């Protein structure tokens, strides 16, 4: 699609929107693959593979056993079928559960020793693994130093963490930010204490699978009273073929701590589907606050629904302490199939949970996503804002639970979930569960489903925009509430993604 430069001059149309619309013409641009020597674990899954993964990570005996317990439990579990997603049966024995670039066999001591090919890959993704002032996710920012906040990055490539930036500076503040395998070696007491304490080994089918075979992921510990001096981020990249990524992230914010964590993900374009089953656990103690933002842009498959990532993710935060707060913000634009419900257990009194989500499904994508807010403590509050957009022949489902337990006196929930349909072949669904078990709490839920308003489109077109441009503007307006909740670095990227994902959905 061609847009003229003078578009930006028009009144009421900001630069971002124009840029967003401009990139509509672009294809999935993270679809390249890196040819790199990769070492695989044998195909399939059995106890030996679990042991092998554990061994590769140099894990202590207790963790190997922990994995095996999960694996044995997993064998007895059935794949859930309640989500409104349909895909061919997954043969778990044809997957590879561990893939590591050969150059990572001996863990590099610093980023300077990392295979340049790997660094180049991240560079190409717009994530330079250099310790400089960068605005992550903004292209070109790496070349021209911009006045911006620092962002520490943990880069995960297939099954291993390639490197983590700003570690020394973070350590000065007392913040531990490293890959989970490193944390197991360096901080076993913390890992042992918190791993599986939010998402137990046998929580659900995919989480249990993850518990058995998880490879790398990030570990964050923010000590009491520390406000993490910079944003932390993890960038997940699947590169190897037929390989699943099973990362595990554990974030602990001790009393009075604050951390903002960003997560990004991409994968190459391939004809075969790939599995991604991650687990994220967050623990927030008294007065702690964690802000977790995701821009999920896994390869969604082509226009005919071929290939793409199956994204089965369990994310849960335990607001264990009084007055703790966890905020989930997600922009879900990628993946062929998404099955993801970031949740908050509001255990501490006066704790707060937030969930802001934009889920976009185009072509043959299917998304079943939402949240759970479980209110256990008194005076707890939660807020859910979910925007679902369906286009092409995609199916988009919001599924959420708000539960007020009898002891959660004076708690509040507000839920708003809106769906937007673009085209008459797609579907938008809402499946909320609302459970109120005491009368001093208030629960409010509202949901709407509509198509892009003809009047708004007409208004835009009347002012000279073409249809695709007009739709992008209306959609951006529809999502604004959630986009505003994202950290600045992500908001711009997300805004662009919103437009890209809807490519070709008009007309």
């Amino acid at each position, binding site marked *: 699609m061609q847009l003229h430069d003078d578009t930006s001059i028009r009144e009421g149309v900001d630069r971002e929107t124009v840029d967003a619309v401009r990139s509509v013409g672009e294809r999935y641009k993270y679809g390249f693959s890196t040819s790199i020597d990769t070492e695989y674990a044998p195909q399939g899954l059995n106890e030996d593979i679990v042991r092998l993964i554990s061994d590769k990570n140099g894990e202590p005996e207790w963790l190997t056993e922990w994995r095996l317990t999960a694996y044995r439990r997993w064998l007895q579990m*059935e794949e859930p*079928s*309640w989500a*409104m997603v349909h895909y061919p049966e997954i043969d778990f024995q044809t997957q590879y559960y561990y893939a590591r670039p050969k150059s990572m066999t001996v863990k590099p001591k610093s980023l300077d020793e990392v295979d340049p090919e790997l660094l180049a890959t991240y560079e190409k993704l717009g994530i330079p693994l250099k310790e400089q002032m960068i605005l992550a996710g903004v292209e070109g920012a790496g070349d021209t130093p911009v006045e911006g906040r620092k962002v520490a990055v943990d880069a995960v490539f297939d099954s291993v963490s390639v490197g983590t930036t700003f570690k020394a500076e973070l350590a000065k503040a007392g913040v531990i930010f490293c890959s989970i395998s490193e944390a197991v070696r360096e901080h076993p007491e913390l890992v042992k204490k918190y791993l599986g304490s939010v998402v137990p080994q046998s929580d659900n089918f995919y989480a249990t699978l993850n518990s058995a075979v998880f490879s790398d992921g990030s570990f964050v510990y923010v000590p009491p009273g520390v406000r993490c001096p910079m944003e932390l981020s993890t960038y997940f990249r699947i590169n190897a073929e037929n390989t699943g990524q099973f990362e595990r992230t554990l974030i602990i914010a001790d009393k009075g701590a604050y951390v903002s964590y960003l997560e990004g993900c991409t994968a190459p374009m391939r004809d075969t589907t790939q599995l991604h089953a991650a687990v994220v656990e967050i623990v927030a103690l008294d007065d702690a606050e964690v802000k977790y933002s995701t821009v999920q842009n896994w390869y969604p498959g082509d226009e005919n629904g071929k290939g793409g990532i199956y994204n089965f993710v369990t994310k849960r935060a335990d607001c264990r302490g009084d007055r703790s707060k966890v905020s989930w913000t997600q922009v879900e634009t990628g993946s062929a199939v998404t099955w993801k419900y970031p949740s908050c257990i509001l255990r501490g009194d006066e704790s707060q949970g937030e969930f802001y989500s934009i889920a976009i499904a185009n072509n043959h994508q299917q998304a079943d996503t939402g949240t759970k807010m479980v209110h256990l403590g008194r005076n707890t509050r939660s807020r859910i804002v979910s925007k679902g957009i369906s286009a092409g022949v995609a199916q988009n489902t919001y599924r959420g639970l708000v539960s*007020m337990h*009898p002891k959660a*006196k004076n708690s509040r929930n507000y839920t708003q979930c809106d*769906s937007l*349909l*673009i*085209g*008459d*072949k*797609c*579907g*938008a*669904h*809402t*499946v*909320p*569960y*609302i*459970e*109120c*078990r*005491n*009368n*001093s*709490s*208030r*629960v*409010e*839920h*509202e*949901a*709407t*489903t*509509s*198509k892009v308003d003809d009047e708004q489109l007409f208004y835009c077109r009347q002012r000279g925009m073409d249809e695709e441009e007009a739709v992008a503007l209306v959609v951006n307006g529809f999502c604004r509430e959630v986009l505003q909740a994202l950290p600045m670095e992500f908001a711009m990227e997300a805004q662009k993604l919103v437009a890209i994902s809807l490519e070709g959905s008009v007309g």
Partner: protein
Amino acid sequence: MAVPALKLDGAQTLLAAAPEPSGEASWARSVRQAAARRLAERGAPVRRDEYWRYTDPQSLTCQPPVAAAPFENDEAPLFGGADRLKLVFVDGVFSRELSDPVELEGIEIQPLSEALSTDIHWARELFGVLEARGQTPVDRPMAALNTARATEGFAIRVHGRPGKPVNFVYLHEDALSDAMVHNIVRVEAGADFTLLENGPAAARFNKVLEVDVADDGAFHHVRAQGRDHERRAVTGTFARLGARSTFKSFTLTVNGRLTRNECVVEFTGDDGIAHVAGACVGEGDFRHDDTVFVTHDAVNCESRQVFKKVLRSGAMGIFQGKILVKPDAQKTDGYQISQGLLLDDDSQFLAKPELEIYADDVACSHGSTCGAVDETLLFYLRSRGVSRGEAEELLVLAFLDEAIAEIEDPALADDIRARLAAWLARRRR
């Protein structure tokens, strides 16, 4: 996924507990057998089923039923003042002595057993047909059981505009009664019919109502499930709507150990209107479950679901509502509201309001809220000299009124309002 043995065995137990009807026409026999097969294959309801997660069906399926002493009611019967054709069932068995003569101008009315023993009968197009359609995508095993076994009930065919409504009155006398009633109503093109139902019915009551409204027809349904503290009931209303037709159903439920009202509505003709509403007041060991499924399969139809529940002393209110808009059902206007008012801390309100939408030119919305009586409103009333009890009562009535307002006939609506006000006032004394 294979049906668990527990469900399959449960289905066999249910089928074995009720005698197989005999002496019926061959078409009726095959409808019965198909229904029994549906139940046998899909199994009895269990707590693990998605649509039974909030209501334990055990007391609806157990054999024999749990005893429920009839409640001595000193109130004047509801709808007593209305000009109506009164047909009385005692513990689910039709009583000719207590009823008016079974005839009314403008309708054909016949006991179900008679219709089912006639070889050529219009009921063939309806009996068990809508119930069977209503079994997908969600199983309704208790309704299948009803089609397979129920012999009581009426077959009504409406041609014009009968001068008065038909009123089914269900009396409960036997503490161990386990009743099944199946009514079918066919509203012919352009006809208009009102059905009233009231009474506690039985210790355990399984009722199915199949309503087929032809083009331009209208069906009005006002139901009051009586004040009978220990009764249990599971009902299934299945409606199919033709073009420009109207279906309005309102249910008032007050007490009763367990009530599960399922309502399945399907639009098959364009420009139809369906309103399903319910007001419920529960206290103590009371569980009330409304499960509604509206399917839009035609253009420019309007559906409304309005459910209000006032709960206290451990009562539990459940709402599971769904609007399904099929791909060609453009211009759909779907609305759903479910609200719980909890008068104390022991009560619970559980809701699952669902939307499943495959058409783009639609406006569908739902809202669900739950909370206590608004203190600001209470304060306002009290500052004007209204006592706390009275103020709360006023607010409860106002809260329920949105559902009652769905009743089209103002006299019937006032009947319901007066009844509610009297109950609340009595409680205060």
